């Protein structure tokens, strides 16, 4: 038996760029499908997109809520000194846990000889407490907040 040498040459009829063009088209198609799927996913999940939109504000609100909660449980003097920012957080977030701090402040202004709050400031602090509790919406849904407003004379 005789073996003849065979020379394998590339098929010159097939253009060189064809395969890479096919790959490119496939790649673009896959990328487009991924992008369309992502967009569809975002559109069909309103909660996720709302969370993404509100990311920055919620960070500030989380920070202020964390600050206020720690203040409510901390020294009374610090709570009295920062009462205005504290009451703003109470009014803005409507967090029922912050009623504790409001009760501590109310105890001060309701005590005739209470320390820390000057006699001349008591009326203003009482108004701040009542108005912040009302603005928080807690008076309608939290028994302690409603009772506190009643004790402070919130009906006036």
């Amino acid at each position: 038996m005789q073996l003849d040498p065979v020379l394998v040459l590339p098929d010159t009829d097939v253009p060189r760029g064809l395969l890479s063009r096919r790959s490119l088209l496939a790649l673009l198609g896959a990328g487009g499908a991924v992008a369309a799927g992502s967009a569809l996913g975002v559109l069909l999940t309103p909660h996720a997109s709302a969370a993404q939109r509100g990311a920055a504000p919620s960070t500030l609100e989380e920070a202020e809520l964390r600050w206020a909660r720690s203040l409510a449980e901390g020294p009374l003097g610090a709570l009295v000194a920062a009462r205005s920012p504290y009451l703003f957080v109470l009014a803005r977030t409507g967090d029922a846990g912050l009623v504790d701090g409001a009760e501590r402040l109310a105890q001060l202004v309701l005590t005739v000889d209470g320390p820390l709050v000057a006699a001349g400031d008591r009326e203003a602090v009482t108004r701040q407490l009542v108005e912040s509790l009302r603005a928080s919406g807690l008076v309608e849904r939290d028994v302690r907040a409603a009772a506190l407003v009643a004790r402070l004379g919130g009906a006036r």
Partner: protein
Amino acid sequence: MTGWKLLAWVPGRAIQEPLPKPPLEIPDAVAEGGVLVIQVNTGVAEIGLVVPGHGTVLVPVPKDGRVEWRVPPDVPGGSTITVSDRNYPNPAGGAVDVVGSL
């Protein structure tokens, strides 16, 4: 001498420097329907108010820090507006009485 402190006393000459500004300069009172002017020195972008009958309101702070905000006409005299600069963890704030007339 208001707003200044004496750093050193040299016979015949006093060296003084201005006291640091408070984070918020808030008036004690504002007239019904008047303009509440608050000077913000903390560089925050907005301040927060608790306005009787209106809940909480966020007011943007201009570059010069001078906030001018018109009190809604239905906020009655005898009520109090609570102010916060929302600058955590060391926020500043105060209370402004709404009065019938200044």
